[in-house]
């Protein structure tokens, strides 16, 4: 019984540590009108890979950074791909009729501006980089 309890604790702490690690990668943001205030890590993965394309209220407009350590960390942690592999994944979706290319931005300021002005938009910036013009989405 003690072994089972210890195993349970270990799994619990590993899961908590994993969630904390994921939260450190980036701050996820959405347009202020998006109703959802939290997403699971699997939801984020599905959005980044083009599998989840709708909020409860309408289509998701995905915004990606085109370069940088935040983009690489998000691609690796949530999409299990390198930034280059994620880019190729989206090209594959677009050229097979299975997706529409996400908006891509070189700077976080441009991405923030897009997300704040585009209904349904979802993206990410460096931790602490979200402004009051967007909604911060908690990752469970």
């Amino acid at each position, binding site marked *: 019984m003690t072994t089972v309890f210890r195993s349970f604790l270990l799994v619990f702490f590993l899961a908590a540590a994993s969630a904390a690690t994921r939260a450190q990668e980036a701050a996820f943001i959405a347009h202020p009108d998006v109703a959802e205030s939290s997403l699971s890590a*699997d939801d984020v993965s*599905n959005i980044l890979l083009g*599998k*989840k*394309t*709708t909020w409860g209220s*309408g*289509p998701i407009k995905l915004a990606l950074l085109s370069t940088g350590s935040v983009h690489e960390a998000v691609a690796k942690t949530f999409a*299990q*791909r*390198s930034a*280059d*592999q994620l880019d*190729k*994944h989206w*090209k*594959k979706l*677009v*050229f*097979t*009729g*299975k997706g*529409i*290319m996400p908006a891509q931005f070189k700077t976080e300021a441009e991405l923030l501006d897009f997300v704040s002005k585009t209904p349904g938009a979802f993206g990410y910036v460096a931790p602490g980089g979200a402004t009051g013009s967007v909604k911060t989405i908690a990752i469970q």
Partner: protein
Amino acid sequence: MSHSCWFQRAALAVTCAVGSSIHLHAVSAGPIAIHGAVSATASYSDKYDFYGSTGESIDINNLELTLNGAQQFANGVRLSAQLYAYELGDSSDLTLDFASLDYAFNEKIGIRIGRNKQPNGLFGDSQDLDFVRPFVFLPLGIYGKDQRALTAAFDGATLYGSLDFAAAGSIDYQLTAGWTTRMSEDDPFISSIGESSPSVTTSMDVGESNTAWLAWNTPIDGLRLGGSASMVRGLSMDGVMRTAAELATIPSDLRTLPSAFPEGVWDMAVAGQSTTLDLDMVRSFFFAEYTRGDWQFITEYTQMQMDMTSVMPLFGASTLKMRSDAYYGMVTWQATPRLQLGAYYAESFANKYDRKGRLNVIVPDHRAWTKDLAVSASFAATEWLQLKAEVHAINGTQLLAGRGNPDVTTWERDWLYFAVKSTISF
């Protein structure tokens, strides 16, 4: 190269000119996002013509132009369409690659209606997209360029989605139903069908096409296992029987058919007569893909069974069952942000019950197989320009066509094939 490719050449020239003068990004035409790709491949073989006149000199044997437009409406419906123009050896065509309306109810289920890409194995729907991988050519015996008209797209509907099984991972699925696309008389697929046949195929009707495709994203990070099964039924072809002289040049044991008759009877009673061929085909794939960091490891096994019923003059109705199979192992490595290397070893067999060609009578035994070791390097010169070089060391002549090559009885088993390719994508 043929003279019928003025469109592709013009498009190639225009796109290259535009591409070299600006930094390429997706073009936004109002709410419509436009993407595209244009590529040119040059190939050379030390012995044979393969996809063009590659046996004597370097041939620019494959030009491709892809133009894609998509729009997402506020209600979530997405409209996508893509034109694909190509020149491959002596063949060229401008095709509607796909044009579909897509709506995802949620991540579990969505529907795509119209002309859809055909999911077959790992690369069936993306076989034309060389810019997402380091290779110029995918394994030739599995994703042959001359087979794309039958395997690239279909007209009908696709149900798709991703089912989450928590700790057990998730399953992506695609279920399709519809019809094969109509193809022109000089399509490379029709040419390849007639390559070793006593008749020349003159037309082909569409057949029913249904596919089930599954991929299990396992709990092991980066490991994906899956498979697909596709069935084509009622594919009907009309043809005309060859003359004895024409038949004597095909790379098949069927070339001896006229000798079963008294001299001159074949040409008098058989040649020029109409034939029909009805084809049912089942193709299955099993695949495993493992991605770890900059490395990717892939393996696939595929088998195809073709049940054919033909009606030929004098011979009447006859049935033929063909069972072929193929497999390969592939590895790719992103060596630097710009340089990607890849290699694969593939084997394919025309008859899985005669892998060593023992049933061949006149044609060499190595006509039964292809064993291909390919090594490739891809360099991203800019964000939008990719340059590739690839070499194939091939054992076996299963994939060779008779046209352009010497008589089949003189073919040698081992040959080399080189290819370089440049691709602009935006």
